[in-house]
């Protein structure tokens, strides 16, 4: 298919996408726990733009996003097989990550190493939940973008 990103380009897109998520979260934490300056706000907006562009180019335009969000009855047997594999890996990764986060938060709060609230807001908890939600929504499509030899649909 002409114009479709190569496997290497898609893998780079996945790396940029998740790096920008971490950047958005890090800048948010610095701003919330420190001071929101104009430079910090500009950096946050730039990181969000990179996040949006990499999401669109790597997962939405290539069709991987729709492949993992389409009713199974509308997929053919190969698409069901690759989607099933991606969802299985995602389930393993996300359940492990969720448990690790749960235990880290529980232990940290128990020994007063971490506060989930700051300035009366639920800042750290909120950004953690948002990042986890984003990961849940995009991880199966990212696995496909990383491993498939072609884009999902033309």
């Amino acid at each position, binding site marked *: 298919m002409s114009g479709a990103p190569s496997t290497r380009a898609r893998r780079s897109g996945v790396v940029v996408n998740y790096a920008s998520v971490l950047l958005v979260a890090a800048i948010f934490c610095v701003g919330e726990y420190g001071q929101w300056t104009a430079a910090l706000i500009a950096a946050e907006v730039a990181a969000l733009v990179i996040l949006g562009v990499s999401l669109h180019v790597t997962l939405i335009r290539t069709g991987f996003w729709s492949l993992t969000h389409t009713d199974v009855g509308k997929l*053919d047997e190969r698409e069901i097989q690759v989607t099933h594999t991606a969802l299985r890996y995602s389930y393993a990764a996300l359940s492990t990550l969720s448990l690790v986060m749960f235990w880290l938060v529980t232990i940290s709060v128990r020994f007063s190493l971490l506060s989930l609230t700051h300035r009366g807001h639920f800042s750290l908890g909120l950004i953690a939940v948002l990042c986890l939600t984003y990961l849940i929504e995009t991880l199966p499509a990212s696995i496909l973008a990383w491993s498939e*030899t*072609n884009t999902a649909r033309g």
Partner: protein
Amino acid sequence: MESRKLYNRIAVLRKDRGLSRKELADRIGVNYQTVGYLEREEYNPSLDLAFRICEQFDLPVEFVFSTRPLRPMSLEIANRGEKAGG
């Protein structure tokens, strides 16, 4: 269980019948990219899909699919001609 690689003649048969990948895909009920995966032998079809492909070309399944590398069709035809001629 690791499945065996299946060899096939889908690409040459499709071109022989003057079909595009999209046309063949529509006839056998899959996405056109799945036809590409089948032609590159990167995906082994289910028995049902294999039969649908063979029915589309009106050929026996052993002529379209094999567990061993397939000979070029020209050699296959020449060999069958020699056998028929005695």
